[in-house]
C-alpha cells in the first residue's frame, strides 16, 4: 500500500470541498481519485482487468448517485446541455467531438501495433486439497490429519527439537534452492522458475494453512495439483519420490519453527 498516494487523493478531495465546485467536477474528481488510488495506491500493481472491473463499478455508482436526486441530476445535466447547445461553446464542442473519436482511433492503432504479450495463466495458489491422499501405501485423511509429531512440542520438547533439527537438514539438502535460505521464496534458482516458489515468511501462506495441507503439497508436488493450480507449470517436486513421511512431517515442523509461526488449527465442527 502506497500510503502517500492514498493520502494525496484524500487530501485533494478534501481540498476540493473548500472550492465548492459544480456537481460535474465533483463526479469527475471522484472518478479520477478512485482510478489513481487503484492504479498507484498499491505497492503490488493491481492487474488491468481488475482495475477495469472496479472502475466500471465506480462509474455505475457515480451515475446512480447523480441520478438519485433530481436536483443533483439537473446540476449534471444542465452544464452538459449548455455545452452542446449554446452558441458560445460551439468551437469547443467541435474540438471535443473530433477529439474523442481520434482518441479511439489512436487506441485501436496502439492495440494493433503493440508487441504481442505471452499469455499468462492466473493459477489458484492454494487450491482446495482432496479429501485424502495415499503416500507410500498409507492413506491420510487430510480433513482430520494432524502432524503426528506436533504434540511433542509440549509432551517431549527434546524429541521435538531433534525433529526440528532433522527437518532443517532436509530443508537445506532439498528445498532452499527454490524457497531460499530465509524461506522468503527467493532461492538461487528462482530467476528460471514460473510460477515463483512460495514464501513461507508471507503471513498469507503457512500460518493460514494446516499442516496436513503442507503435507499434501510436499508429498504430491506440482503433479498432484488440481487443474486450477496449474500442475503443468509449477516446479514443486513430488517429494514422496525422495523423502519418507516422517521426514516430510519433520520438515513441516522446521518451517513453522524457523518462521516463528503456528499452523492453523483444525476447526471444530459444531
Amino acid at each position, binding site marked *: 500500500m502506497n500510503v502517500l498516494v492514498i493520502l494525496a487523493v484524500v487530501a485533494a478531495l478534501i481540498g476540493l470541498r473548500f472550492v465548492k465546485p459544480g456537481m460535474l467536477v465533483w463526479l469527475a474528481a471522484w472518478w479520477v481519485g478512485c482510478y489513481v488510488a487503484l492504479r498507484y495506491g498499491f505497492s503490488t500493481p493491481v492487474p488491468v482487468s481488475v482495475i477495469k472491473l472496479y472502475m466500471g463499478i465506480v462509474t455505475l455508482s457515480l451515475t446512480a448517485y447523480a441520478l438519485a436526486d433530481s436536483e443533483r441530476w439537473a446540476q449534471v445535466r444542465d452544464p452538459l446541455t449548455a455545452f452542446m447547445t449554446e452558441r458560445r461553446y460551439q468551437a469547443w464542442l467541435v474540438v471535443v467531438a473530433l477529439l474523442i473519436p481520434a482518441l479511439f482511433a489512436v487506441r485501436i492503432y496502439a492495440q494493433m501495433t503493440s508487441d504481442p504479450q505471452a499469455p499468462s495463466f492466473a493459477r489458484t495458489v492454494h487450491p482446495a486439497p482432496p479429501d485424502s491422499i495415499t503416500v507410500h501405501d498409507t492413506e491420510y485423511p487430510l480433513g482430520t490429519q494432524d502432524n503426528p509429531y506436533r504434540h511433542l512440542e509440549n509432551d517431549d520438547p527434546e524429541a521435538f527439537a531433534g525433529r526440528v533439527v532433522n527437518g532443517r537438514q532436509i530443508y537445506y539438502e532439498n528445498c532452499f534452492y527454490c524457497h531460499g535460505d530465509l524461506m522468503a521464496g527467493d532461492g538461487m534458482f528462482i530467476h528460471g522458475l*514460473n510460477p515463483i516458489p512460495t514464501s513461507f515468511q508471507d503471513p498469507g501462506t503457512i500460518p493460514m494453512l494446516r499442516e496436513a495441507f503442507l503435507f499434501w503439497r510436499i508429498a504430491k508436488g506440482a*503433479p498432484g495439483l488440481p487443474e486450477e493450480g496449474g500442475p503443468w507449470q509449477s516446479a514443486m517436486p513430488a517429494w514422496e519420490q525422495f523423502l519418507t513421511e516422517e521426514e516430510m512431517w519433520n520438515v513441516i515442523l522446521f518451517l513453522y519453527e524457523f518462521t516463528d509461526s503456528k499452523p492453523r488449527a483444525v476447526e471444530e465442527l459444531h
Partner: protein
Amino acid sequence: MSGVAKSLTLLLLVAVAAPLTAQTDGQAIYAKYCSQCHGENGDGQGIAARFLKPEPRDFTSGKYKIRSTETGNLPTDADLERVVKIGLPYTSMPAFPNLTNAQVSAVVGHLKTFSADFEDPELAPEPIPLPSPPSYSEEGAAKGREVYEATGCARCHGTLGRGDGTSAPTLTDDWGNHIRAANLSMPWTFRGGGTRQDIFRTMSTGFNGTPMPGFYGALPEEDIWSIVDFIVSLSGNTVEEPYANLVRSIATRESLELTDDLFSEAPTTVLPIVGQIIEPGRNFYPSIIAVGVQAIHNHKDVAFRLRWHDMRAETAGTNAPDLPAPLWDDELAALGQLEETGSGDDEEGFWGDEEAGGDDEDFWGEATVSEEADSGDFWGDDAAPDDAAGEAGDDFWGEETGSEDAGGGDDFWGEGDAEPAAVTTPETEFSDAVALQFPLEMPQGIRLPYFLLGDTQNAVQLWHADLGANASSAWVARGSAAVSPGDSEPPKMTARYEDGEWSVLFKQPRRPQTGLTFEEGAFIPLAVTVWDGFNRERGNRRGLTPWYHLYLEPLEKPSSVRPMLKAGLGVLGLELLIIGFVRMRKRSRRPDVLRS
C-alpha cells in the same frame, strides 16, 4: 552540554543497547543462518555443502574472494559485511536483508574467529584506493582488448570473455575443486558485482583462494580501467538480467537456408537455465547460465537458432534424453580429483613459473578454442560457412565485438613461453546436447503438458541435437519415465562452436502431417533443455527452462487504417446523435422553460 545531560544520554544508550546485545549474538545468528552451508566450525562443510558449487567458503582459511584489499590479504570488516548484506549473485550465497547492521557486524565478528589470521596485527587489512570510475569509452574498450590479450586474461576467460579459455577446464581453487572462470559477458552473474566500480575492484584485488589474481600494482590504473571498458563492451552494457518470456519468430518470404546469416534480423530472447532438481537425475549445479533463442519462418518451414556459452565443446561421447542418470551423484567430485591428479596438484606453480614439460604443446600459446574445434574438422561438410571473424562478434546481447585470436607472447604471467604442468583434462563420457521442447499437439485451452517432459495424457516432442554425433533426432515423451524416439522426421540441424559459444540451428516444416502445427498469430508453448557434457549432464540430469512461448509474427501484417476509421467514425456518429437529440429536446422544451 552539561555533564548531567551527557551521563543521562549515556544511561539511555545503555538501556537501549541492553536488549540489542541479545539479538546481536553473532554465534547464534551464525548458527541459524550460516552453519547449514559453512558448517558449525566454519570449515565450509555444512549439511548443504555437498550439493553446492561453487562450494561454501571455508572460513578457517581466512581466504576471501570479495575484498577491497590487495591480493592475498584479509578482507576488511566492511568487505565481509557487504557480502552478508547483498550476497554473491548466481551462487548459493544469498543476501540477508533481514539482518540489522548490528547483527551483520556481530556475525562478521563471529566468522572472523574461525581464522587466527584476523588476530594477527601484522595481517591487519588495508583497503587499496578505489577511484571513482571514468566514463566508458570505445577507445578504452579497444585498448582494453589489447591489454586483456597481453595480460593473458583470455587463457582462462576466453577471447570474448565467455569463460572458455584453453585452461578453463583445468582451473582449481585452493581446495582442489574445479572452478569456472567467470563469463565476462554476463555482468549480472559477477560474484563481486557488475558495475564498473565493482569490476575495477575485482580486477585490482583478485579473488583469494582462486586462480584469479589481483592486478593492483601489477598493471597501471588506466590499463585496469581499459580492461573494465572491454568487459563492459562484451555484454553490450547489459548489466541487469536480460531475460524475457516470449520468443518472436519473424516472417520472411525467402527460403530458410540454415546458416547463421538467416538469423541476423531475428530478435534474441534470452531464457535463463536452471537445474533439473525435481526428479531423479537432480542437477544441483547446471553450468549453462542462459540460452539465447531466435526464430524465423516462411510459409513452409520454421527455423530456430539456439546459442549458449559453454566452457568447452564436448564432442566426444554421446548424449540422449533417455540416458539413465542417478538420483544425484558425486561424479563431479570424482571429476575434480581426476583434474587434480592430471594437473599435478600444483596449486602454487599453476601459473607457470614451474617448468614442467608436457606433450600438450603450446598450451598457453597460440592454441585457441576455435582452432581446436577447426583442427579436427569435426563438423565436416555440414559446418556453416566459416565467416567467423565478424560472425562470432555478433553476440547475443546484441553488441558487435570483433574476434581476434588470442596472442601468446609476453604477458602478465611472466615467462611467456613457460609451460605449466601438462594438463590432461578428463575424457568426457557425455557430449554436449540441446533440445527444444514443444507440446506434441497444440493444447486446447489452458492445459499444457507438464513442463518436465510432459505427462501421461499430454505428450511433448523434443527436437534433440547430440553435438557429439552432430546429429539431430525427434523424441516423444509422456513423462520422464516414458521418453522414446518419435516417428517423425528428425529436424534439420547444423551446429557450430566458436569462441565459447554453441550455435545450433534447427529447421522443421510448419505443418507436419500429424501433430503440432506452427500457425501464425498463435502462442505455442516452448521449453529448452541443454546438457553440458563436461558437467556430466545427460538424460534427466540437465539444465532446463519452464514453458515459455513462441509467437509467429504474421507475414502479412493487417493494416490498422480500416479499424481505426471504423471506430473513429462510429464514435463520431454516436456523438452527433447525442448532440442532435439534446438540441432537439431543448428546442421542443423551450416553451416549458419560458413558462416556468
